[in-house]
């Protein structure tokens, strides 16, 4: 009786203290546990989404657009293991690495709604998230096994207390408040096979791999709970990364919405992150001959004066992928501005149009010199 009572008091104290409790220990599983909390990576507790011990958050200079969701990305490695730095490629992560990406929204003004809004410090609780500020949708895991990477989608319950494995994906009906205007849409959690649709960036080997954590996209400052620091330096300091140069000498991808940076660099960064997992010379969309990776030359393979191959209705009645100076006549932008499943690009991972991303690509095409023959 007394023990039970004291346990209750402890629980109350812990809740009051928020993030003061010791972090959960991460457990590596070679099976696929049903509950996300079994991993100890990101767990709902004490009114927050808390990060487990050694779970390090990170961000990207230019992220993938997913229906205006915010994303909390983390990486964790087993004791003593570290990733090898690789320029121009994702870090070479050791066996046992687990990467998480939690998709969430700021809460809207009306109950049950979510909001289109920039990320702010007010949604953060330490390195985690304040659950009274956000609505968690899903957490995707990438686990580095001996044989390669495994991808698992977990979907958060309505109570925001647990996410469960849903390999078949899910449809979440959401209402997004955009400058006060509510908009209903179907947020799609991809199924485990569809994870490979993006993460098998080479459609011949079909090896699943992370996409974001390349040095150029990691090379930025992050506001950790313990203070702001460059992410590459932080990973080195944490023992998670070896072989890295000083951050100032490492490449850095443009920040897509940093208006002080050149439009071309930002647009190419945006296309690289949002398109090049398929649109690269070995990717699933090499069937189109359209290569949107940041390394691609600015020629027909970048869409410039290039006719479509199998776009179907996706051509929008336009003749070329990119018509310099004429964004409204460019198939690439037409497909970014669409939310029809057979027209829009990317094919997977969004139901809404990324207006700001489309505006960037519009500005890039508008500013391009040259013309296609007519």
């Amino acid at each position, binding site marked *: 009786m007394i023990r039970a009572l004291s346990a209750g008091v402890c629980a109350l104290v812990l809740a009051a203290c928020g993030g003061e409790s010791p972090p959960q220990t991460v457990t590596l599983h070679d099976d696929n546990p049903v509950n996300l909390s079994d991993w100890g990576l990101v767990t709902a507790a004490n009114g927050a989404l808390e990060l487990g011990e050694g779970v390090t958050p990170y961000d990207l200079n230019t992220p993938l657009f997913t229906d205006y969701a915010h994303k909390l990305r983390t990486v964790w490695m087993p004791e003593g293991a570290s990733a090898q730095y690789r320029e121009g490629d994702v870090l070479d992560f050791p066996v046992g690495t687990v990467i998480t990406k939690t998709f969430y929204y700021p809460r809207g003004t009306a109950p049950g709604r979510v909001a289109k809004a920039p990320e702010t410090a007010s949604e953060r609780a330490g390195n985690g998230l304040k659950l009274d500020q956000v609505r968690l949708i899903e957490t995707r895991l990438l686990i580095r096994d001996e044989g390669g990477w495994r991808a698992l989608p977990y979907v958060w319950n309505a109570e925001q207390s647990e996410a469960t494995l849903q390999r*078949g994906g899910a449809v979440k009906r959401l209402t997004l408040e955009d400058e006060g205007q509510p908009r209903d849409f179907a947020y799609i959690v991809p199924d485990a096979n569809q994870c490979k649709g993006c993460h098998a960036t080479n459609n011949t080997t079909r090896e699943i791999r992370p996409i974001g954590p390349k040095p150029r996209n990691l090379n930025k400052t992050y506001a950790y709970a313990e203070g702001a620091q460059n992410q590459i330096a932080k990973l080195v300091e944490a023992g998670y990364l070896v072989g890295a140069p000083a951050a100032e000498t490492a490449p850095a991808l443009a920040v897509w919405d940093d208006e002080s940076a050149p439009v071309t660099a930002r647009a190419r960064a945006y296309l690289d992150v949002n398109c090049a997992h398929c649109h690269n010379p070995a990717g699933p969309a090499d069937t189109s001959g359209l290569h949107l990776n940041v390394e691609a030359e600015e020629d027909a393979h970048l869409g410039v004066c290039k006719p479509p191959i199998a776009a179907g209705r996706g051509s929008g009645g336009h003749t070329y992928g990119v018509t310099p100076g004429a964004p409204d006549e460019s198939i690439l932008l037409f497909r970014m501005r669409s939310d029809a499943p057979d027209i829009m690009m990317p094919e997977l991972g969004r139901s809404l149009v990324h207006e700001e991303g489309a505006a960037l690509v519009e500005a890039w095409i508008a500013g391009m010199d040259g013309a296609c023959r007519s």
Partner: protein
Amino acid sequence: MKKTMILAGLAGALGLSACGDGGDQSAGPAQEADASYQDTLRTALLDAQPGDVIEIPAGKFSFDRSLSLTTDGVTIRGQGMDETILSFADQIAGAEGLLVTASDFTIENLAIEDTIGDALKVNEGKNVVIRGLRTEWTNGPDTENGAYGIYPVQIENVLIEDSVAIAASDAGIYVGQSRNVIVRNNRAEYNVAGIEIENTIGADVYGNVATENTGGILVFNMPHLPQPGHTTRVYENRIFENNTRNFGAEGTAVASVPAGTGVIINSNDAVEIFDNEISNNKTANVIVSSYYTSGYTEQFDTADAFDPYPERIYVHGNDFAGGGGSPDNMDLQALRVLKFGPTGRLPDVLWDGYAREGGADPVLCVDNGDAEVMNLDAPNDFSDPRIVDGGADCPIEPLPAVSLAAPAP
């Protein structure tokens, strides 16, 4: 070891009877689609192991999102193209009905209906068999329909047989960038392109029926792709009355195909068209054209990897009848009247007139009874269209038959 999974699903599903009226679903009794089966099939695709046979019972099953298969060596089998129907009429997400990124794949005896985008896409791999599959947009020809019905791309060894493709807004059967391909005994109707072979090396297209499409059978090459195509045999097909208006989206390669085209070769090399019945295609029974008359303005020179000219097109032994009497193009219509009179018809073979300057290879040889060839003189703004010698004595050897390197799995 093979494992067969009978995805019987609900007993109720078995009770749903198929229309069984020979492929014309719109004429059959309305059938309620079963949405509860979606998770069963999706889970089977996620859990599939090499060698598995995923057997789908008779019934009409509804899906709201694309399906995806990523495991090699899987067979998906229904109970017949009119008995097992995967309906995507309620689809809200996904660019295909079923997307396969795997080798040694067989799909047979079922239908995929009313997808938002492509019905079946198989993207890169080896040894793909598509047999007794029906892909259909049940509303008939419509620009809003998905682009492709049956769409293998970048596959080595493809067999498509005994299948039916209806009302795709681009091509009913579209084989792209593949190698060693057999397309036989299929039926393609009410598509923009009935059967299209594009950037493919080694294709045999025979025993098919292509009718009521905009263009019956297309053999195309497009630029900027890893593989230029060549060596296609189109034979013993019935290609008639492909007179459906072009409902393809502007900007696509097929948008330039005039309604009423039997067979059209564009920019491709080594194509042999023989022993077909080709009739009553109102623009022309056969069109041989270059990239320069396909609606694009890009220019290529000999240093480029892409060859925009058709070469070594061999036409012989076909049974031509009718056709060319009402071309879907004002200039061609005027030309017809001018050259052949108000009730006359254009010759069986139209050639746009583009040829590589000084090229050693003949563009085409037509050794086909009294079939005539008209050079449209497109390079000179169609100023001097004329009947030309088809080059019946030109030295084009018949092409070898395709053999699928691996036995059909």
